Each structure stands twice: as structure tokens, then as C-alpha cells.
């Protein structure tokens, strides 16, 4: 017999009259992040199982992004009257980052419902399921990332030292992905209509966000762009990499504000409804 950490004495006290929701939510987050290895292993399993038997596996994502880049790049550079050298670096970064955002948001909706079997049988921090979703999408995205340096090199577009600023942008993106996985994962478990709504919103957002088009093309109206949260988050990564500037103060303030808002909302929701989640899935 094995005497693992499970045999250490632990106390579980619950009083419905004084549920200590905040404390239990924080414990869930703490334990969840402490078991990041589990989330990582599960994410890798997901990826392996999804592409089981496929020859190039997750590189299908890379290939489809590449095809989109070539097709849309040639067409839209022409439509917008831009040279390929101007347009393609912009499109590459935008499209790769957008695929990450869209993938994470869509996946966030099924974070908890796909873990139903585990949630109803084992006591595992809910945070683990959200981390799993973030890791899985991060791994998928990593397969498309090489496209960015390839296109940059092909068109001789070398970002300056400001490119380092893309790192905090990336951190912001991951933070948002985690918050979204928690919040949408819970809401979609309770209300099954939210998933399709989110998918629709993301499709609309793809066209409303400067991905295919450049923000400058809006001329005066460009000042309104930071109202679009997707633009703010996208620009914190694209600005440093493509335009060679930090993205502007407005963009950063907006991005941080939106992230704080989403994080706060997710936390509040988690504190309030963590105990109900096992009944929802």
C-alpha cells in the first residue's frame, strides 16, 4: 500500500449557513495552479487524441493558417491597394493571434462540460480544467507561431527592440484566456445557449477587428477602435511586432482595463457559483 500525501490528515468542514465562498474559491485557485502538471498532461493528451492517426497532426492548423495567409494576402493586398511587403506581416501576426483568441474563446465554452466525468466523480480543483483549456490552445498555437518569423524574414521586415513589449502582451492574452475559460466554462455549463451565441459573436468580431484591414484605413474613426476589446488585446501584440511601436498608451490602458474587468467578473462568478458547478455539468 502506498502512503501518498492523501493519507495526511485533512479537514473538510462545510456549513451551509456560513459557506466561506471566497476562501474556498481561493483554495481552488491555489490548489489548481499547484497541480499545473496535471493540467499540462491533460492538455497534451487532448492534443494527441484529437490528432490521433493523423500524419501531420496539429500542423494541419499551421497549414490552414498558411493557406489563409496566401489566399487572403494576395486578394486583400490588391483590394486595399497595399504592397505585399506592407500587408503580409500585418496579416500574419493578426491572423495567428486571432486564431489563438478565437480558439481559446470557443474552447472556453466547453471547459467545464467536457470535464463532466471528472467533476462528478473526483474532487479536482476546477481551476485545473480551465488551465487545461489554456494549455491546450497554447500548444496548438505554438505550431502556427513559426509562420511569423518566416513571413518577417521573407519580406525583410525586422522588428526593432520594441518587440520585447509583445511579451507583456502575451501575458495579458494568457491571463484573459484563463479568465474566459473560468467564466465562459461556468456560464456555458449552466446555460447551454451561450456556446452558439459566443461562436456567432466571434465570427462577427473577426470582421469588426482590424485583422484583414489595417486600423489606419478607418482614418478619423480609428479613435473609436479601443472600444473593441479584441482590438486592444490584439494590438498589444501586433504593435510591438509589426508597426514597431508599443501600440500606444490608449491601447495598453484599454487592454489592461478589459483584462481586469474580465478577470474580476470571472472571479466574482467563481466565488459565488463554485459550489453549484457540480450540479450544472
Amino acid at each position, binding site marked *: *500500500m*502506498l*502512503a*501518498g*500525501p*492523501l*493519507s*495526511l*490528515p*485533512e*479537514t*473538510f*468542514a*462545510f*456549513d*451551509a*449557513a456560513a*459557506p466561506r465562498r471566497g476562501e474556498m474559491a481561493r483554495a481552488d485557485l491555489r490548489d489548481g495552479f*499547484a*497541480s499545473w*502538471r*496535471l493540467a499540462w*498532461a*491533460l492538455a497534451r*493528451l487532448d492534443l*494527441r*487524441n484529437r490528432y*490521433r492517426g493523423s500524419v501531420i497532426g496539429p500542423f494541419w492548423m499551421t497549414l490552414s493558417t498558411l493557406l489563409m495567409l496566401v489566399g487572403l494576402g494576395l486578394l486583400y493586398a490588391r483590394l486595399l491597394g497595399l504592397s505585399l511587403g506592407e500587408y503580409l506581416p500585418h496579416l500574419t501576426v493578426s491572423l495567428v493571434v486571432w486564431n489563438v483568441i478565437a480558439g481559446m474563446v470557443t474552447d472556453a465554452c466547453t471547459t467545464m462540460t467536457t470535464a463532466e*466525468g*471528472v*467533476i*462528478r*466523480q*473526483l*474532487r*479536482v480543483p476546477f481551476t485545473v480544467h480551465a488551465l487545461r483549456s489554456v494549455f491546450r490552445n497554447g500548444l496548438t498555437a505554438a505550431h502556427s507561431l513559426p509562420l511569423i518569423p518566416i513571413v518577417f524574414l521573407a519580406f525583410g521586415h525586422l522588428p526593432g527592440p520594441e518587440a520585447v513589449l509583445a511579451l507583456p502582451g502575451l501575458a495579458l492574452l494568457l491571463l484573459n484566456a484563463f479568465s474566459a475559460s473560468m467564466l465562459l466554462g461556468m456560464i456555458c455549463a*449552466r446555460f*447551454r445557449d451561450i456556446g452558439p451565441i459566443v461562436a456567432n459573436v466571434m465570427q462577427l468580431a473577426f470582421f469588426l477587428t482590424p485583422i484583414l484591414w489595417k486600423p489606419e484605413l478607418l482614418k478619423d474613426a480609428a479613435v473609436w477602435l479601443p472600444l473593441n476589446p479584441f482590438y486592444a488585446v490584439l494590438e498589444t501584440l501586433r504593435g510591438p511586432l509589426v508597426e514597431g511601436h508599443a501600440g500606444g498608451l490608449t491601447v495598453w490602458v484599454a487592454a489592461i482595463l478589459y483584462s481586469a474587468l474580465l478577470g474580476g467578473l470571472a472571479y466574482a462568478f467563481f466565488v459565488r457559483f463554485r*459550489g*453549484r458547478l*457540480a*450540479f*450544472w455539468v
Partner: protein
Amino acid sequence: MVQIEAQGLRVEFPLYHLGARSLKKRLLARAAARVRTDESNRVVVSALRDLDFRIASGERVALIGRNGAGKTTLLRSLAGIYEPVGGRLLIEGSVGSLIDPAAGMDHDSTGRENVRLRALYRNLDPDAQDVLEKEVADFAGLGEFMDVPIKSYSAGMSIRLAFAIATAMQPQILLMDEWFMAGDAAFMEKAEARLANLVSGADILVIATHDMTIARRWCTRAIHLDAGQIVADGPVEPVIEAMLAQG
């Protein structure tokens, strides 16, 4: 001290996604004792109603009663999965639950990979993982099948693996559903010895069962649940007799 104490424990299942209003009406129209609407107009099933009990160290408790009496729900509440909506629950001691043998298994992974995965679910350190892997491989006796994806296992092989994984730890409080009674005869002999070991090592055993021989053999106390309430609680034999007499 290892103990379980429940005071006025109440668990309710909300029935979400009740599509048609007519279904809701029909459910409620039958004047059922356990289905009702709560204050926010949701249909809820009272799975456990105001349970009071205390299980002290050394007790072996059988939860008996009909299907739907609330046995598994009570096990899940004790395991910390279902949060009660009312009352208090205090659990002192490490809890090991053998509720669903397949919980957390990945069907595309091999037996060995699943053991590793379970070790991660339990937050074991790498050394303990190795020990667990060896233990399970020895006990399950699957041989080369340890390195084959478990979706190609027969039902008996799955049970053996699940049983080996689930029973490789020694918790202070052992919660069990009666699924473990499946498996071929040779394996059951081995399983019995191991179960006996596990049960005698645990401070508290709570087992949900329909099989009175299991209750008589392993337990010192029986709690008879019906419709989410405790009907009788006491030494095994009188409780079982009262239940059988009642039909």
C-alpha cells in the same frame, strides 16, 4: 481524530434543461414528495433531506436502501463533490473514494499512462508515481496489456486496472460504491484479500450497497436511507431485518 459528522445535511439537485413546461407541470402535479420548486421557481429534487449522523473512528457503515434512496449522492457529498445546500458537514481525515472506477481515465491512453495520469490527479510526487505504477502493474496482472490503449481492454480487464489503481492508496476514510464486485473468480479472490487489507487499514468505511451479505460481512453499522431520509440507523442486523420486513 478521524470522524464524519453531519447535521441537518441537505442536498438538492436542480433539474435544469427541463425543456417543456408540460414536463415540469407533470412532475409537480404528481404531488411528489421529493420534486418541488424552490424560491427561484426552479424544479429541484431533494436528494438528501436533513440527515443527522456521526461516524466515529473505527466504524464500518453500510448505506442501504432502494435505488434512488440517495446512497451514491451521500457518498459524493462526503467526498466533497456535491456541496450541500443546507446543514453542516465536517470531515476529519483523508478521504479516498471508490465511486466510479473509470473516473478520470483516458480511453486512448495505455494502462500505464492512465496510472501516471491518476497519480497526477492525486498530486503524487515522482517517486510515489513510480511506486504506484509498479504496484498497479503487479496487482492488476495485465502483463503486456499495460502498454495497450485501454479502449481495447475487455470489461474484466478494465475493472482490474481500475480496481488496482483505486485501491493502491490507503485513505483514512474509505468511501465505496458496490461496483467492485465484478471481475473473474481468480481476480476476486485476490481482490477480496486486498479489500480486506484496505478496509482494515481505514479508520472509517462507508459503503453503499444492495447486497446484504456485503453489509453483514464488512460492516458494524447500517444506515437505511429511503427517499433521501434516514429511516433507521444502528447495528447491521436489526436495521437489515427491519428493512426486509418492511419490503
